[in-house]
């Protein structure tokens, strides 16, 4: 379609817009549910949005549909160029961590897109979370383009572009309730098969209490844990998850001993209570520990330290719980 006058291009500039189609929205739903992962790609290229001139800003993005679409929808009233670099369908932050959203790819894409002939200035604006993969000073050295780090979130771009200054708030990643809840259903889905098998098996082993217990332990780890993250006691994910698991287990155990199996012998009640308290909190704790990767703030050193401290106690407690449960069954 139309290219800007200054370009009269050898390399095509693809026009795009800030409007999302139903097809885009359907693609986003699929991506959020991790369906056809790796296939939510945009063609790496230079794109134009609005009616950019040679003085318009150039914004760099990953070739993941959720990244690209977040950027273009934020630019609803802006004339700009978007340079999509090849990150193999991975979002900006993760790709930067892997190095695919990186210095080399950016420099090469600046070169092959003929960007220097399209714009008069020599600045590319990157999402701040691209920084773990891109050395700004090396890009400048190798391509002549200065790297400017814009805000973390595309939605802050219109504000940012007025002054090219980001507020401290724009520079922070957050992990608010909505961010965390977006991840929760998919976390649950990841454990669904285990849940189903365990719930059915435990029904035949232990009746409804067992099924309810595994359901709540897993829903606790995947839904309650992310929701309650900031308010759960201690700093470590494992101990946060363990505390939550303890509360859940206590609730089920109380219900079981006082109501569902109220007529069982005292020995049986004590044994099954202890076994449940050993068995289930580590399950929630383990799922919670696995949520570190989804969070936006855990360091590798910290997660390693958590694993060193807690994996063994979790496993021991879990196995003891199973053994006691078997013993309780035959008493």
């Amino acid at each position: 379609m139309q290219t800007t006058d200054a370009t009269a291009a050898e390399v095509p500039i693809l026009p795009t817009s800030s409007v999302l189609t139903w097809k885009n929205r359907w693609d986003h739903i699929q991506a959020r549910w991790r369906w056809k992962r790796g296939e939510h790609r945009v063609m790496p290229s230079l794109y134009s949005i609005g009616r950019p001139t040679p003085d318009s800003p150039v914004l760099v993005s990953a070739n993941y549909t959720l990244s690209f679409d977040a950027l273009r929808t934020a630019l609803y009233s802006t004339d700009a160029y978007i340079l999509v670099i090849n990150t193999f369908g991975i979002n900006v932050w993760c790709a930067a961590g892997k190095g695919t959203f990186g210095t080399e790819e950016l420099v090469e894409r600046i070169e092959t897109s003929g960007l220097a002939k399209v714009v008069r200035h020599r600045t590319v604006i990157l999402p701040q979370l691209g920084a773990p993969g891109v050395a700004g000073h090396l890009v400048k050295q190798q391509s002549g383009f200065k790297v400017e780090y814009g805000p973390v979130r595309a939605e802050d771009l219109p504000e940012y572009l007025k002054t090219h200054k980001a507020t401290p708030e724009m520079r922070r990643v957050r992990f608010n309730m909505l961010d965390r809840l977006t991840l929760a259903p998919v976390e649950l889905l990841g454990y669904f098969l285990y849940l189903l098998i365990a719930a059915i098996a435990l029904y035949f082993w232990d009746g409804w209490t067992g099924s309810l217990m595994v359901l709540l332990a897993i829903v606790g780890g995947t839904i309650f844990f992310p929701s309650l993250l900031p308010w759960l006691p201690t700093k470590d994910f494992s101990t946060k998850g363990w505390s939550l698991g303890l509360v859940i287990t206590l609730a089920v155990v109380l219900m079981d001993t006082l109501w569902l199996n109220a007529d069982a012998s005292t020995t049986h009640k004590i044994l099954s209570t202890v076994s449940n308290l050993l068995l289930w909190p580590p399950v929630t704790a383990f799922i919670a520990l696995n949520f570190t990767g989804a969070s936006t703030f855990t360091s590798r050193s910290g997660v390693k330290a958590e694993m060193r401290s807690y994996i063994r106690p979790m496993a021991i407690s879990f196995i003891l719980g199973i053994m006691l449960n078997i013993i309780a069954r035959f008493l």
Partner: protein
Amino acid sequence: MFNSYKVNTLQYVPELCIGCAMCWTVCPHGVFAEGKTAQLRKQEACMECGACALNCPTHAIAVQSGVGCASGMIKAAITGKPNECCDCS
């Protein structure tokens, strides 16, 4: 107690800082404070993403960067393959 995140691999040599502003610009957790040279303000908040070190032109910052993801590390330990974060897409 129950805080494994007190220690990390972030190292900063203030003498090498030329005040280029990159580290406090790229850090998503406000670890460095703005100043004539960078001030290491919240070491504990560092998530070892490596953005500051990579963008520091004088190598005043060093950090062993990596993804803080337990399931990735567990998977790597089991399969023996290099650690890649599992759920990143």
